[in-house]
């Protein structure tokens, strides 16, 4: 397959014109590309290929038995394992709550910060601060706050006159809610900043034109702001969905045992670590990894479609 460019480069005339620079440039390109290229091959492409290969074998981390090809057994085992479905359902529960709530909350914060008032930089800094707190640390702090006699319940008892005070992390219904709250507390600032940047890029003339036309603030928000930040919103929704699939730190740290109580916070990643690392079944763990990748890929492709649609309009 010869492209026009290649043909041109090979023609003697062209060669004469750019020979000294071009050869040096190609050599430089190789030098520039080599270090990262090698690392990407070794630590991204190779393990990715291995994940797919292993997922069709019975490979174990340390085993005297020879590895052999087992076809779709790992996938069948995974899909017939109720624990896998429970994990996937927990990711879904987390996503269903976090994606809309965190996106709307982030947008709300971004709109607040975008108002013309003094001290907005201070509030922006405060709202962003939890992002800089390591999730493992945040999870431990909230374990104490969600204690049956902790500060969260003390506040709730005050507000509900003692009618609502669950034992969050030991309750199969409420443990996931606690995980969700910590996720939002720690992560919303990140989304807020991305949306804030998008808000500030909406041209001020559009608002002026809308207010001359007599549009109310709410109308302006619906018809100027939202369309103006559409791509940023799609990006935020996508990244939040993907992060929901990758959920690991809080369910690993917060419950008394990882993924507990009674697997009510067990996620795909907790499941994968349990199978692939704790039980050292590399083949089955790889199958979970491949399924996880397909889910993430689907979410990403869905995002691309939304963004392209807007470009075509």
């Amino acid at each position, binding site marked *: 397959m010869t492209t026009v460019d290649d043909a041109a480069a090979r023609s003697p005339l062209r060669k004469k014109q750019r020979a000294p620079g071009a050869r040096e440039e190609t050599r*430089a390109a190789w030098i520039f590309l080599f270090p990262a290229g090698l690392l*990407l091959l070794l630590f*991204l492409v190779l393990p990715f290929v291995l994940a797919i290969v292993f997922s069709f074998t019975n490979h174990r981390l340390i085993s005297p038995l020879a590895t052999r090809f087992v076809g779709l057994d790992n996938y069948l085992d995974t899909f017939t394992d109720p624990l896998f479905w429970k994990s996937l359902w927990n990711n879904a529960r987390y996503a269903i709550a976090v994606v809309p709530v965190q996106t709307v909350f982030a947008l709300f914060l971004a709109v607040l910060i975008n108002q013309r008032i003094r001290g907005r930089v201070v509030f922006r800094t405060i709202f*962003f601060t939890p992002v800089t707190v390591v999730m493992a*640390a945040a999870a431990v*702090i909230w374990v104490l706050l969600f204690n049956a006699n902790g500060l969260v319940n003390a506040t709730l008892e005050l507000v509900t006159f003692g009618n609502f005070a669950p034992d969050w992390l030991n309750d199969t219904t409420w443990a996931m809610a606690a995980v969700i709250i910590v996720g939002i507390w720690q992560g919303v600032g990140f989304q807020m*900043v*991305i949306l804030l940047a998008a808000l500030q890029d909406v041209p001020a003339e559009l608002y002026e034109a809308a207010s001359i036309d007599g549009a109310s603030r709410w109308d302006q928000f619906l018809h100027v702001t939202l369309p103006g930040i559409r791509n940023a919103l799609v990006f935020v929704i996508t*990244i939040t969905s993907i992060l929901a699939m990758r959920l690991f730190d809080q369910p690993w*740290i917060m419950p008394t045992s990882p993924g507990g109580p009674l697997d009510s916070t067990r996620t795909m990643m907790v499941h994968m670590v349990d199978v692939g690392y704790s039980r050292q079944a590399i083949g089955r763990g790889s199958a979970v990894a491949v399924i996880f990748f397909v889910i993430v890929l689907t979410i990403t492709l869905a995002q691309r479609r939304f963004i392209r649609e807007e470009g075509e309009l």
Partner: protein
Amino acid sequence: MTTKVSRNARRAEGASSAVRTSPVWRWVLYALMTALAVFFLFPLVYMLSSSFKPDEAVLANSDSFEALLPRPFIGFENYADAIERAQFPRIFLNSVVISGFIVGLGLIVNSLFGYALARLRFRGRRVLIAVVIALIIIPFEALAVPLLFMGAEVGWLDTYQIQILPFVANPLYIFLFYTFFLSIPKSLEEAARIDGAGPITVFAKVAAPLAKPAYATVAILGFLFSWGQLLWPTMVTRGVDVRPLPVGIGVFKTTPPIAWGDIMAYTVMMTLPILIIFLIFQRQFIQGVASSGVKG
């Protein structure tokens, strides 16, 4: 013309919303934002005050707003305990070494790769750009199990390199550098070329200094993500020797009478350095995060 002037004036004030604010609305805003600030800050205040209390008092106090005050105050006892029990200096150093190498090496190799994609002519450049964009989609977690196997095969478990090398080259950071180098004008580089400088000199002396904002963004994002990693070090470290901070908390969870004061002291020591760095460089942090969203 007038609208343009007034808009520029408004921009200069640092405000970008076109909505006018009335006094009543302003007070509503402040009340709302203060309430939100309390929501975001009280866990950190709680952490800090608990770190100065006896272990029993941390839980006993937590059903009232006493929880947010450092009473009874025992000074830095918990900190001394936490430093000893978790071998904190060692673990902290591990985190610094791991994050430092990931960020430092990453800045070099990713910017070189991004620059080559943006500026140098070579065969297969377009294909390579598409490959990099496709690789961004692969989340690290999907690679963890086979990487664990690879690490075990070459005897790299419980080492620094297994925690560093997989994270140095990063297609997202390559892409950020690539788009940044595309956005800066070529003229300076071309002038240097005419003066006889080779591509490596042009990159090191002209392009890289112009790309400081991109370096800052990638450094900050890389640091945020590497400093907090839990899943991977949990899988590849067993002892305390090379273990980073987020895994180190586990030391406190194993023994039955949980020393909450010590744990809170540990989390303070783990959070404070990055918090201070954030407060110093907060504009760069926020710009860095914002530019991570400007893609696609």
